């Protein structure tokens, strides 16, 4: 059957089952939704990939390479905002169950972000659109592609006559070559039509900055691994940046305290980010202060470099002074940083975040050029999106056209402007003037419901496509599964627009590898990308440019109520809101706030105090005549005078997870888009905050001890032992200092311990390189069938993650630093949990694993009480209840068959991925060879972009983990309890600039304090 002509029984499904039943937002009752899906079973089991367009044959002959019960892996790529994430997807009996990074890809190298990994959940999400819907006079009717196709071709034929004057396409930005080709043909077929690109989190500041600096839209490829000094201006380099994984890996490579030239990281940012968390020096500034700050830094650098520089690299204007720039912390930061940059010319790298104003981007480019970093630590490639108009402006124009009635047919490809358009662009009103609006989307979202037609879009794992990664490498997307429901891709609908009937696969092949042989094509699919296709580097030269004048208010060290700055940030989990129905991501604790299931306005403690805002209460944000009531969360280390709010929450038609008005499912979080206008896409000035004092519980996995003096003192007292930290200078002077930092008497045991086995599995976690990206948590969740429990349960402290990232705030010398500590079961050799279990349900294996015998567990929970790390998770309810229900067959396809699904009433915890150990052992045994180091990789270690987690055999002295366990930085947490943990932590080593650390010492005489917030 042709993918363009599939006709599946979804209409009969709707007819038979009526509207979907009600469900609430909690993770487990939503699965009742699945009851409606029973009719689609036949499809669920049709598990062939879309390699050939021919009919699927029964397995009379087993397909090549397919062994029942074994897994296969395919390389593919997901595109977000026009950039590819290169992935390797594991498929079990034809169903994708686990997403990992593509190890061959030069940027991602096996790592994958939390979002990419969580996407597998969407594939089986019951809310993921499963059929076509036509809305007529407010009533939704199920439709089929068979009905839609002729209708659509009729509409297009009519439009072709007028040259497409009434036809508009609104699409996501894409780097797909195949789509670009179709777009060219679209322009030729419909000369009067327009193709508009909409993207709420656009890169327009970045492109405008490059345009300003170079007169040319280029994008910068940071070479973090080549830089000795890394400076970030409000840049979430290791999480939000499209090349985050490569940057994180590069950072990790330069942080080995025994390596040459240990990197020093500097950060100036508003809300704490992944880069600020690992920074050796960090200052918190408002976004509006970034420009004066970079200008001041540039001026210092130029003063030191003298007149040696080309005139174009010198700023025209005099740098601003005074105000916040004159505060001791900033003065010291700028002076020391400028000195260091000049000293390390050609070895430093300055980066700047997406949100920063264009001028800041431009100055950063100029600074990198002046520091001779271009070509060494930063490289440029031409950006394909350069020719796109600014998305928000383009959208506003489109809405004007729609309102004028000029648009007869609007085709929306994957976008959701009804939800995420700027608040002063009323897309919904415009849409009502459009006679025919067609929405292709993963979900029947806000826009899908407002359009006259909603078409279900295929998941990336069901799609053919292509995209380029940040370095310009052409990556291929191949389907791992036939669309479970009749769904199509952007590419397929675009093909229909121009009357193209070629298979999507062939369109992709023709665009990505024109004229290539089958072997080359096969290799590209196998690798997931076309080798050597990365964009050529360009060396743009800086033109003299002026920066806009610095507003006096920006120099104010603080801002008063009514003059606050509101910062709109991309959500690290939900991005722009498109992942709102992904319960794994919703329940993923935010790296900084540890918040799940929602967003909040983030306040610095000083700002909150000044405004009378208490943590976990409701506040009213008022800006530009708009108002939003939302929760407040106090975040140490946030810039004073600014309030950050994450976008992507408050969805009203995301689904039963993220919020669905139609079924009275409350939205998760607060709709911050309502405050975001055309003029204030990144920040809004003159924000007024009104405290209501009404409590609003935030579902945080770590309760902040803010305001509780005893708690604070407890944290302070123990933090230096739990999370050991030293400076590079101290470490080099005393390489074993951290290993011996904990003092305790000789440890004796009540009983004799078993002889250690021939294999001793262990883990080493390097605190020095963890950037808190959360990829490990999602990797573990997908690998180990870890359930989602919902907001109410998280509020009760019953989240189930097997690996969590503990976050501490440490205050030293007036600056707040964030520290991460990934924590899973430590597999103690003398495990306290094992001694107290009355039924011996948790016992040691011969290889030293602390095994959990689910069948034996009766659920006394004594083990969890006695676990000093609190890594044991209890099934307080049957969190997997609905998978037994009829109709949940699709959702059930998600589970990893190698891992038991836990019943209610039993304890569970990290197993060190025992199923992966067994798989590797069986394979080695079959091949008659010993297991080699690195063959067993736990899910968390596999995906860690910085390789902070290392797993292996401690008994093998040559293994990586054994060598790390013997490192001078190695320590075992709470060792004094004589529990003998198998997980080794490597102490964090900061690398402060001696000019600042000398100053900080005198300041910290008033006492360093740590607290948990």
């Amino acid at each position, binding site marked *: 059957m042709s993918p363009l002509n599939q006709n599946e029984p979804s209409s009969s499904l709707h007819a038979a089952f009526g509207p979907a039943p009600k469900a609430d937002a909690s993770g487990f009752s939503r699965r009742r939704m699945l009851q409606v899906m029973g009719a689609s079973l036949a499809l669920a089991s049709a598990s062939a990939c879309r390699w050939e367009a021919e009919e699927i044959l029964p397995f009379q002959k087993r397909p090549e390479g397919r062994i029942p019960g074994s897994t296969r892996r395919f390389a593919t790529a997901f595109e977000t905002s026009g950039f590819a994430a290169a992935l390797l997807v594991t498929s079990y009996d034809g169903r994708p169950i686990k997403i990992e990074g593509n190890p061959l890809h030069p940027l991602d190298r096996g790592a994958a972000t939390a979002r990419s990994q969580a996407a597998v959940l969407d594939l089986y999400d019951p809310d993921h659109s499963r059929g076509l819907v036509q809305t007529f006079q407010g009533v939704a009717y199920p439709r089929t592609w068979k009905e839609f196709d002729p209708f659509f071709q009729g509409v297009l034929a009519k439009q072709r006559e007028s040259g497409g004057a009434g036809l508009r396409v609104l699409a996501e930005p894409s780097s797909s070559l195949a789509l670009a080709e179709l777009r060219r043909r679209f322009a030729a077929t419909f000369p009067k039509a327009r193709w508009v690109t909409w993207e709420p989190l656009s890169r327009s500041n970045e492109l405008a900055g490059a345009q300003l600096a170079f007169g040319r839209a280029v994008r910068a490829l940071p070479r973090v691994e080549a830089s000795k000094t890394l400076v970030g201006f409000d840049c979430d380099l290791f999480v939000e940046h499209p090349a985050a994984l490569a940057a994180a890996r590069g950072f990790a490579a330069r942080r080995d305290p025994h390596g040459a030239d240990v990197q020093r990281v500097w950060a100036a940012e508003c809300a704490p980010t992944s880069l600020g968390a690992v920074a050796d020096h960090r200052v918190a500034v408002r976004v509006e202060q970034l420009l004066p700050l970079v200008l001041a830094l540039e001026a210092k650098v130029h003063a030191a470099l003298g007149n040696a520089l080309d005139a174009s690299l010198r700023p025209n204007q005099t740098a601003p002074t005074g105000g916040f720039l004159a505060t001791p912390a900033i003065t010291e930061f700028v002076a020391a940083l400028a000195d260091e940059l000049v000293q390390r010319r050609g070895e430093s790298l300055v980066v700047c975040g997406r949100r920063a104003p264009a001028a800041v981007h431009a100055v950063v480019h100029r600074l990198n050029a002046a520091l001779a970093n271009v070509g060494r630590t930063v490289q440029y490639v031409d950006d394909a999106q350069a020719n796109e108009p600014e998305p928000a402006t383009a959208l506003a124009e489109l809405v004007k056209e729609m309102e004028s009635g000029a648009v007869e047919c609007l085709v929306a490809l994957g976008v959701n402007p009804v939800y995420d358009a700027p608040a002063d662009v009323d897309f919904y009103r415009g849409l009502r003037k459009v006679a025919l609006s067609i929405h292709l989307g993963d979900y029947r979202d806000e826009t899908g419901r407002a359009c006259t037609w909603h078409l279900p879009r295929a998941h990336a794992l069901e799609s053919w496509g292509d995209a380029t990664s940040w370095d310009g490498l052409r990556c291929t997307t191949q389907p791992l599964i036939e669309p479970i429901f009749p769904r199509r891709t952007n590419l397929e609908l675009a093909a229909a627009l121009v009357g193209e009937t070629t298979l999507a696969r062939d369109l992709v092949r023709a665009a990505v590898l024109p004229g290539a042989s089958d072997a080359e094509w096969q290799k590209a699919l196998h690798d997931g990308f076309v080798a050597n296709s990365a964009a050529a580097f360009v060396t743009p030269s800086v033109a003299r440019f002026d920066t806009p004048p610095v507003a006096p208010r920006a120099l104010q060290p603080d801002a008063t109520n009514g003059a606050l700055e509101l910062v709109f940030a991309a959500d690290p989990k939900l991005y722009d809101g498109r992942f709102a129905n992904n319960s794994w991501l919703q329940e993923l604790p935010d790296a900084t706030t540890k918040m799940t299931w929602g967003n909040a306005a983030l306040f610095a403690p000083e700002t909150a105090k000044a405004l009378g805002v208490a943590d976990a209460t409701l506040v009213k944000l008022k800006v530009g005549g708009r108002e939003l009531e939302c929760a407040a969360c106090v975040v140490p280390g946030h810039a004073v005078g600014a309030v950050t709010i994450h976008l992507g929450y408050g969805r009203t038609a995301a689904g039963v997870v993220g919020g669905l008005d139609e079924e009275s499912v409350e939205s998760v979080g607060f709709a911050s888009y309502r405050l975001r206008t055309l003029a204030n896409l990144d920040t809004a000035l003159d924000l007024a905050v009104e405290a209501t004092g009404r409590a609003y519980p935030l579902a945080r996995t770590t309760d902040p001890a803010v305001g509780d003096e005893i*708690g604070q003192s407890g944290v302070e007292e123990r933090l230096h032992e739990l999370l050991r930290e030293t400076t590079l200078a101290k470490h080099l002077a005393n390489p074993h200092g951290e290993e011996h930092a904990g003092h305790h008497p000789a440890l004796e045991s009540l009983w004799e311990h078993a002889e250690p086995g021939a294999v001793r599995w262990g883990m080493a976690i390097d605190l020095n390189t963890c950037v808190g990206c959360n990829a490990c948590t999602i990797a573990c969740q997908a690998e180990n069938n870890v359930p989602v429990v919902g907001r109410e349960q998280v509020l009760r402290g019953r989240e189930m993650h097997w690996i969590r990232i503990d976050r501490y705030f440490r205050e030293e010398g007036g600056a707040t630093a964030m520290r991460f500590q990934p924590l899973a079961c430590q597999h103690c050799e003398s495990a306290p949990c094992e001694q107290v279990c009355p039924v011996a349900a948790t016992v040691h294996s011969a290889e030293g694993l602390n095994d959990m015998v689910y069948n034996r567990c009766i659920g006394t929970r004594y083990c969890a009480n006695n676990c000093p790390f609190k890594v044991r998770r209890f099934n307080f309810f049957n969190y997997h209840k609905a998978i037994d229900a009829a109709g949940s067959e699709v959702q059930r396809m998600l589970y990893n068959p190698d891992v038991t699904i836990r*019943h209610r009433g039993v304890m569970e915890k990290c197993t060190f991925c025992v199923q992966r150990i067994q798989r590797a052992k069986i394979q080695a045994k079959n091949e008659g060879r010993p297991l080699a180091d690195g063959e067993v990789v736990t899910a968390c270690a596999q995906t860690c972009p910085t390789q902070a987690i290392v797993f292996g055999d401690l008994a093998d002295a040559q293994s990586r983990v054994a060598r790390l366990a013997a490192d001078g930085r190695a320590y075992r947490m709470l060792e004094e309890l004589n529990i003998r943990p198998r997980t080794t932590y490597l102490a964090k080593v900061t690398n402060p600039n001696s000019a600042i650390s000398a100053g900080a010492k005198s300041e910290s005489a008033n006492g360093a304090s740590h607290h948990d917030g």
Partner: protein
Amino acid sequence: MTVDSTSALHLDEPYARPVLVEGDRDIAAVTRRVCGVVEAPKPPKAWYVAITITSAMTVMLFGCVAYLIATGVGVWGNNSPAFWGWDIVNFVFWVGIAHAGTLISAILFLLRQKWRTSINRAAEAMTLFAVCCAGLYPSIHVGRIWVAYWLFPVPNQMQMWPNFRSPLLWDVFAVSTYATVSLLFWYMGLVPDLATLRDRATTKLRKGLYGFFALGWCGSARHWQRYERAYLILAALATPLVLSVHSVVSFDFAVSQVPGWHTTIFPPYFVAGAIFSGFGMVVTTMVPARELFGLKELVTLRHLENMNKVILATGSMVGLAYATEFFIAWYGGNPYERFVFLNRALGPYWWAYWLMVFCNVVAPQFLWVKKIRTNLWAMFVISIFVNIGMWLERFVIVVTSLTRDYLPTSWGYFAPTWVDICTFAGTFGLFLTLFLLFCRYLPMVAIAEVKTVLPAAHPHGGHGHKEGAHHG
């Protein structure tokens, strides 16, 4: 309630010990009085009112348990890090209450404290009923109730045995042994009285039932000789149990490594606390019960005063234990332990801690004053404080220690749900229902034993008479 004149008279004479039985001290009168409660055609109206309320609460308990079993432990407020909450708090609370009975029956028996005779029966019954309530919790608090029997070393085809290192297993043995011995001891003591009831029975049903349980007792000298020997042996057996059961319960905490639990003071501290709470509950129930069933002459103010003295002594021991814990937390130098104790007093549960100190340490000190010690209202109020305080003590130990242990990132707060509250209230319903049924259908006072402390049993003078005190 007022203090009756007879006892007031005796109280005024400092040298004379008050008598153990007041009123007409006639052997037949004791039998009449005690059996009269059982044989009355109708119990007092208050009994009906009380049992209606308590049985409704019992039904609520069963409803909550059914809901719990059908849904999961999550219906309670237990969370991570407080994996144990009210379930274990209430378990320890009820086990503690169960201590008074055996203490009064066994230890005081061995120590020849004859004043025990008129209260031991009721106290033993309370022990059993409290053990029922206590035993309920560990069995329903597990995640998979349907396999809770795996806690017992049941031989099976997989040769899976429980983990004998686990204090929870010791607990199973300790509590079940205690329950068994307490039941036997109570039943043993009942046999002669059941025979009395049988002999006085007017209906066939009564005759049959009391007769069946009286085991053919006919009061022969041989019966009495064996009975007293057996009673002595059981008392000797039960005595170590008074100390062992709560020691073992305390091992659940002391053997773990949770800061605030892992302390060697726990066994004696728990035993003292258990006796304290047990006597508190006996006073709470006996003060109204003796009024309700007209047993003031058998359960005299002297008894109540003696019990108050025990409350005062054990309450002070408990206070000493609190102080010692703080001293050791400071002196021991373990930062985690030091933190836990500071956190108890000043952290988020400070209210529970200080309320506990008031109820357990401050309130009993009023009992030094004889007027308060012998005032029914005052002792009733203080005994209520003791009950509340001892419940809070278990709450403080279980919850404050768990919610703030080693890693601050895992710290949490425990809040009970309505199911927690209703289940706990329901156990009171169960306890009181059983107690009310006991009062109505079994002799509340050990008839045979009381007769031995009557003047008639000591024709040459004895307890409470001319020579005064040589029987202690």
